[in-house]
């Protein structure tokens, strides 16, 4: 079994199990762990699709950043691992029908365009750095500006809550 196939199988399993975990668990810490598994699965699928830059960015930004943010949020909200009541779920038929309909629409729209049963990994993409710092310099800089604005917004939101 090649490295790519291993990444595909492990990534698919982590993706599915992580998503089901986020849906089904009632404990906050387990939800974060399930989310981490899902995010690692996405990174492994990026490895399969020969997108190493995206895989590394996924691990650094999501697993190393966003997941830590979730843990901080749980810590600030003072939820221990034994807290099982605050994540109560009210399963709803209307929501299930809506989600199923969206799934059906996505499958109908995308599967005819998706080729064979197993996706074929592409050749290595061109230089991402040359693309980001060349023709895509404006959106790249705007993304940096957006992160700065988000950081300021976080400080304002949290400190504003303290002031009141």
């Amino acid at each position, binding site marked *: 079994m090649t490295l790519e196939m291993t990444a595909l199988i492990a990534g698919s399993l982590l993706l599915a199990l992580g998503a089901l975990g986020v849906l089904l668990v009632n404990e906050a810490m387990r939800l974060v762990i399930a989310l981490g598994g899902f995010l690692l699965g996405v990174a492994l*699928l990026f490895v399969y699709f020969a997108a190493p830059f995206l895989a590394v960015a996924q691990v650094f930004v*999501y697993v190393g950043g966003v997941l830590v943010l979730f843990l901080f949020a749980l810590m600030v909200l003072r939820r221990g691992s034994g807290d099982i009541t605050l994540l109560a779920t009210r399963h709803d038929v209307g929501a299930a029908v809506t989600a199923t309909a969206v799934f059906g629409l996505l499958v109908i729209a995308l599967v005819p365009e998706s080729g064979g049963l197993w996706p074929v990994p592409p050749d290595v993409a061109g230089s991402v750095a040359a693309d980001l710092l060349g023709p895509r310099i404006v959106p790249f800089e705007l993304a940096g500006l957006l992160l700065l604005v988000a950081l300021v917004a976080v400080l304002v939101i949290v400190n504003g809550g303290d002031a009141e």
Partner: protein
Amino acid sequence: MIVVVLASAVFSVGLYVVLVRRDLVAILAGVELMLGAANVLLVALASVAGSFTALVESAGALVIVLAAAEAAVGLALVIAAVRRSGRSRTDEFTEVSG
């Protein structure tokens, strides 16, 4: 096709989580599921179509950045809401102002 169907299913699971979960942190986790699945779909479909270029990888990176900003602001809003009201479930917020 396997990955496309799987990512579509995960997107739908994320939507279902957003619709049925009452806890704000769990709802944000559902949004993260949807964003991750959308990014996988972007890369997978570009790969299948034979148009996987640096542009696609750049777009995927921008989606990751946007999702990180969304998570940071969203969690800050959750913390501020819980600090102000002591509540963290959507069905406990009954006021639209004040």
